[in-house]
């Protein structure tokens, strides 16, 4: 897809901003705090109906404003023009998304239609943080590829909260009849089985994408890193075998919950399910989270995002929009150069940076690749 233009009204520090994007690299340049990341957040709303950064819609509402709106013009790879409108009102609090003027009954139905891949400094936690960060990465990718996965994930989360409430209430008020928790256990196992099955298949497919991407951005020859081989492994949050089928997953999860019933009642929390999944990231068999070098962390993170981009493009038959928030600031020029080369081959991207040094002198700025400057929430094409 190509995002040809976006209009922001009362979004963060953008009172009224219109940006017309080029189909290649769009460099958004400016000092910190001028509104660069805010522009990417707005684009994130178009693809994912929310910010990749802010916790709530209220956080991105311009101070003192009653509502914010976004209006995006998008062309699909097949050449079909779409308009996506996002509106959030503070009082009564509510968000709506309209596609081609048609208000969507479910926000979730928009996710995946206009695929985006985002890399921002917060995503460092994917490789350096705990398993929850890697589960989130997987969820965002899979949700944009399979709407049914997103549905299952949302409903799983809701059932899990309901079930945990029964267990934690039980800690305070004493034992409850098993009939009270059984319906939730059955639901949880059904959604959980489907999620685990999808995730396992995803990791199996995704490994090759990550290896290829990693190779393509390794620093230039001369640095002793060319023998590095990254890998991913899925560890299910309940015992399964390699040959367990989709239905089998649900049975396994139900069995795992049954076997831990007493422990769950003692601890007041659900102890088996995909909310306890882990994706192990390794380089040459060594765990990334605990043992990788700074450089390896950065390289594998960028590799994960490039892999995500290519995976989504193949699955959806639609090139995602790539959003890179301030990723070059901490990279050496060799690495930045390689990433830029790969990015150039990926279609449309919006890249924020404090200045255009990171882009070197090799990009031809013009119709295909455009530069913008942002100052106090005002975005202008650079001279």
């Amino acid at each position: 897809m190509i995002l040809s233009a976006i209009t922001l009204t009362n979004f963060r520090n953008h009172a009224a901003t219109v940006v017309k994007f080029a189909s290649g690299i769009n460099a958004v340049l400016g000092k910190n705090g001028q509104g660069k990341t805010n522009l990417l957040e707005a684009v994130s709303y178009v693809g994912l109906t929310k910010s990749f950064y802010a916790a709530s819609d209220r956080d991105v509402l311009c101070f003192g404003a009653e509502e914010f709106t976004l209006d995006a013009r998008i062309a699909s790879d097949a050449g079909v023009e779409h308009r996506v409108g996002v509106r959030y009102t503070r009082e009564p609090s509510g968000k709506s998304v309209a596609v081609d003027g048609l208000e969507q009954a479910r926000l979730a139905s928009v996710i995946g239609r206009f695929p985006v891949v985002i890399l921002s400094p917060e995503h460092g936690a994917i490789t350096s943080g705990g398993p929850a960060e890697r589960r989130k990465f997987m969820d965002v990718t899979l949700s944009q590829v399979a709407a049914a996965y997103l549905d299952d994930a949302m409903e799983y989360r809701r059932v899990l909260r309901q079930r945990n409430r029964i267990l934690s209430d039980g800690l305070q008020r004493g034992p409850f009849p098993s009939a009270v928790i059984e319906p939730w256990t059955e639901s949880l196992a059904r959604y959980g089985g489907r999620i685990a099955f999808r995730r396992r298949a995803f990791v199996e497919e995704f490994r090759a994408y990550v290896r290829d991407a990693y190779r393509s951005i390794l620093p230039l020859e001369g640095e002793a890193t060319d023998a590095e081989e990254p890998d991913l492994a899925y560890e299910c949050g309940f015992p399964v075998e390699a040959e367990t089928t989709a239905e089998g997953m649900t049975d396994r999860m139900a069995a795992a919950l049954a076997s831990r019933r007493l422990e769950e009642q003692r601890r007041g929390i659900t102890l088996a399910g995909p909310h306890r999944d882990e994706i192990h990231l390794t380089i040459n068999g060594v765990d990334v989270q605990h043992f990788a070098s700074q450089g390896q962390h950065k390289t594998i993170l960028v590799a994960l995002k490039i892999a995500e981009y290519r995976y989504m493009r193949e699955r959806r038959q639609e090139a995602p929009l790539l959003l890179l928030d301030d990723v070059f600031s901490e990279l050496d020029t060799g690495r930045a150069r390689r990433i830029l080369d790969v990015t150039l081959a990926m279609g449309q991207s919006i890249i924020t940076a404090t200045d255009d040094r990171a882009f070197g002198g090799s990009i031809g700025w013009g119709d295909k690749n455009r530069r913008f400057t942002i100052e106090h929430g005002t975005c202008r094409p650079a001279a």
Partner: protein
Amino acid sequence: MLYTSEALQQLIEEFSKLPGIGRKSAQRLALYLLKQQREDVVRMAKAMVNLKDKIRPCSVCCNITEEDPCAICSSAKRDRSILCVVEEPNDVIALEKTNEFRGLYHVLGGSLSPLEGIGPDDLKVKELLLRIDGTVVEVILAMNPNVEGEATTIYLTRLLKPLGVAVSRLARGIPVGGDLEFADEATLTRALEGRISL
């Protein structure tokens, strides 16, 4: 005080407690009423009070009614062998509009939701089980298509099946008038799962 009248402020506060009404709309509604004729406003206020004074639960189906038992429960034209279990009185109105269902209803008064403190004892479950007395041969569970409705369906199925009645649920799937082509993927997946053998 923000407003020059305490009466106005009070009404605005009452209105803003209503679902979907923000402070701004509440203010607009209150000022609108102020401009209306006194008898019109009195009629409206009376209608609100009547709502609380005249309506009570039907002792059979737990739906809201002015006469007990309600018109549906006491109608001779309804099929007493089929019971449709719904969450709220709204759902009865929606199903009655279809003119298709000729059986009786049972209004649970909500769905299971531990997060909101709603357990089986907070719903009209005992009242439902009392109605399974040999006349009823089929129970249709028509809960909302969300996780709370689903858990309620599972809970009731487990209670009802041993009583020897046929239990069915509404199919979850393509909305009527929706083209297969335009149904979103998640809806299609659900519809496939909920397919009915013919």
